[in-house]
């Protein structure tokens, strides 16, 4: 019943929450002055944020996704909660180790087809400050959100920041959790910490927030299982692409209830699959939204048959790999939870790759694909998606440590290079830890062990890229798979050379086109 009330069907705009004003009223005598001070502060905070955002962009100092938000929140910490509460159709949070950005991107496309206008933070800033920047960008100088009855919040949230974000987003209609992998051990330690953190956070949610969970991830499926919140599970049913035995990149989670060893009748990748505990009898929950058939159509697309309780749709997902099939599945599940019309799901077919997510760029007659890989499972799945057809390909691989953010690079030893040997002739390695990557590849059997290891080590991202491009035979694509620092530097250079445009410039152009259409329609 709850979800019906929250539905995104046409004409249901009654979701405006009222808790934005709760901190303002203290006593009737003072309330007017307090409200005035509070709103003046908010106007100041929002204007300062907007000014900072414009300033940063004008100066060409990146897209400024964090600083404006930080500034705004410093002036008025209540801004974020206030603005989010003003979104007429409530909001959906997407979190997890991998795939949250792409899931948001896919879901946003479905929402747009359903006539909604999602407020998104998909470009990298998934912590509190980034969310604040997004909200500031969508509000007017009055300190309030621009009026739009069809707008809905769709936020990608860093799994470590979820507790903090949930404090500001008091009442999300759904929380989508994609997966929990070993990620950034230097920041989050072991997955158990993240699991416990998410569990504590879910307990603070209102009882009507739907939890959209990956049934195939034993860490996610059983999160806060005693809660009475509605739960919607998504999972892979087609066992065709299951692996023979365990995946070497798995970290073998134990039974979430009794800590015994889990058995799998089918493993898709890492620890995702059809799991069961023989000791306490806990099993993978039956998913309500599932992929009944999957076919990897090569290194750039996937064919999926997605079954929900009401519909059965075949989708041509223009993104490669099993991990993207899971992202599409999560997006469809979230759309189902929100009662978007089933026909809109096909909007997924028109999605373009997000920046750094197998982003395709044309450079000097070569197709270049940029893929960001931040942890062992991400790196492995990107490599498997690219090299899955077992055709040799030219690649530039990057590895950087990132002091203060990700200083530890030991996770490359958990990447399954060993299963993909002999497919990348003379790889070019970039980043300040390129030498570490070279050692890893040598021990994985990618390089010759003798005096001539057949590898190019060039820490500088741009020079490495030029070397890799020069070594790529005419007409063949070059695949760049790397951690963030190398990719950001490379993309900055590609922008300076005019091969790509900044993300926010593209967004702005989209925005302008939309406004033009709107004006045209109203005439």
């Amino acid at each position, binding site marked *: 019943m709850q979800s019906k009330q929250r539905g995104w069907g046409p004409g249901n705009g009654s979701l405006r929450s009222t808790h934005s004003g709760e901190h303002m009223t203290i006593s009737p005598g003072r309330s007017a002055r307090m409200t005035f001070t509070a709103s003046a502060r908010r106007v100041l905070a929002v204007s300062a944020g907007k000014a900072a955002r414009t300033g940063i962009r004008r100066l060409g100092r990146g897209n400024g996704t964090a600083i404006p938000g930080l500034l705004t929140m410093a002036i008025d910490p209540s801004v974020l909660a206030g603005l989010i509460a003003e979104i007429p159709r409530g909001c959906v949070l997407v979190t997890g180790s991998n795939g949250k950005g792409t899931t948001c991107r896919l879901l946003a496309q479905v929402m747009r087809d359903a006539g909604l206008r999602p407020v998104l933070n998909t470009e990298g800033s998934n912590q509190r400050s980034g969310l604040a920047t997004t909200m500031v960008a969508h509000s007017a100088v009055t300190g309030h959100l621009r009026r739009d009855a069809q707008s809905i919040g769709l936020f990608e949230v860093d799994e470590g920041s979820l507790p903090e974000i949930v404090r500001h987003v008091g009442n999300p209609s759904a929380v989508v959790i994609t997966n929990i992998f070993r990620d950034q051990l230097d920041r989050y330690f072991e997955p158990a*910490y993240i699991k416990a953190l998410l569990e504590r956070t879910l307990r603070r949610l209102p009882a009507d927030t739907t939890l959209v969970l990956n049934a195939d991830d034993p860490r996610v499926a059983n999160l806060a299982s005693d809660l009475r919140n509605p739960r919607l599970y998504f999972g892979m049913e087609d066992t065709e692409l299951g692996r023979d035995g365990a995946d070497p990149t798995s970290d073998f989670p134990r039974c979430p209830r009794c800590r015994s*060893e889990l058995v799998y009748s089918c493993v898709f990748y890492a620890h995702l699959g059809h799991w069961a505990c023989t000791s306490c009898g806990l099993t993978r929950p039956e998913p309500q939204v599932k992929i009944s058939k999957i076919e990897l159509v090569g290194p750039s697309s996937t064919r999926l048959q997605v079954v929900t309780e009401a519909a059965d749709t075949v989708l041509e997902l223009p993104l490669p790999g099993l991990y993207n099939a899971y992202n599409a599945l999560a997006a469809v599940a979230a759309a189902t939870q929100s009662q978007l019309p089933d026909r809109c799901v096909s909007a997924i077919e028109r999605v373009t790759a997000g920046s750094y997510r197998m982003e395709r760029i044309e450079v000097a007659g070569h197709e270049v694909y940029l893929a960001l890989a931040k942890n062992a499972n991400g790196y492995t799945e990107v490599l498997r998606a690219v090299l899955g057809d077992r055709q040799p390909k030219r690649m530039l691989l990057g590895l950087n440590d990132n002091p203060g953010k990700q200083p530890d690079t030991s996770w490359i030893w958990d990447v399954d290079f060993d299963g993909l040997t002999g497919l990348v002739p003379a790889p070019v390695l970039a980043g300040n830890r390129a030498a570490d990557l070279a050692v890893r590849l040598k021990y994985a059997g990618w390089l010759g062990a003798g005096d001539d290891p057949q*590898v190019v080590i060039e820490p500088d991202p741009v020079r490495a890229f030029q070397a890799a491009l020069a070594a790529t035979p005419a007409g063949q694509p070059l695949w760049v798979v790397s951690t963030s620092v190398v990719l950001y530097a490379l993309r900055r250079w590609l922008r300076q050379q005019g091969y790509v445009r900044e993300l926010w410039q593209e967004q702005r152009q989209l925005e302008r086109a939309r406004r033009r259409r709107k004006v045209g329609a109203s005439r």
Partner: protein
Amino acid sequence: MTGMSLRLGCLYPEIMSTYGDRGNVETVLRRCEWRGIRVAVTELRLGDRVRPEELDLIMIGGGGESQQRLVASDLWKVKGAGIRDAVAQGAAALAVGGGYELFGRFCQAGEGAELRGVGVFDSWTIRKGAASGDQYRTLEDERADRAIGELVVRWEGTLLVGFENHSGGTYLGATARPLGQVLAGHGNNGDGTEGIILGGAIGTNLRGPCLPKNPALADYLIGAALRRRLGETVLTPLEDGLEQAAHAVAVQRARSARRAERARLARTVLRYPGRGSRMSTTLRRGHSRPSVRR
């Protein structure tokens, strides 16, 4: 070197293997393969017994507290005697991170009862959070109490490089010998020592994983393992250009981290002169993170 063989026992490969610890096993396997030394690997899981006479090298990786709790009782009840006998008979061993902590006498956990160790090493581990008795509330709290960063250690005239990420302080008994001296990082407990060495058995906080980038240490372990049955053996030198390059990068990263830390300290000292004395003491002791709370 043909005809040589080495018997390797991997303890809890699925549970005790965070931070790419399988890279240590892979390094031993490859460096033996390149020399024509056959390696027979035995995976020792929960419930499996250790036959000391059948192992030349024992390896255990790291793991967080939940993993340690999972294996601790099996380690000392089922395997303890076997492991201690093997080391006493001259088998080599490499225990890293959480495994190093469990190879000591005991290991105080952040919550719950302390874990009994195998007692291979005369050492014990006290976890910082244990004193307050409660669970960490936020990741920031937890992070503040951990030693996280590059770790460089002087060992037998060479440098060992790696990464450390641990909240426990490991203390050595009177007769124990540390593996080496900390040049950058935290090490055992901030007293300037890192790891422990007992014949061919080594315990260390070095991650990264430690063997690929420290081929000298890898060969030391292989040599010690072979020596057990074959007596003195000379290992064929290998081409280690890539390994040395990665080693050099790690040393240089640690240096620049140290420089940045010093600069930060200098600024703090100039700004708040009162705090200077305490901070410079921690720096002298070899801490790279004065923010580590007591």
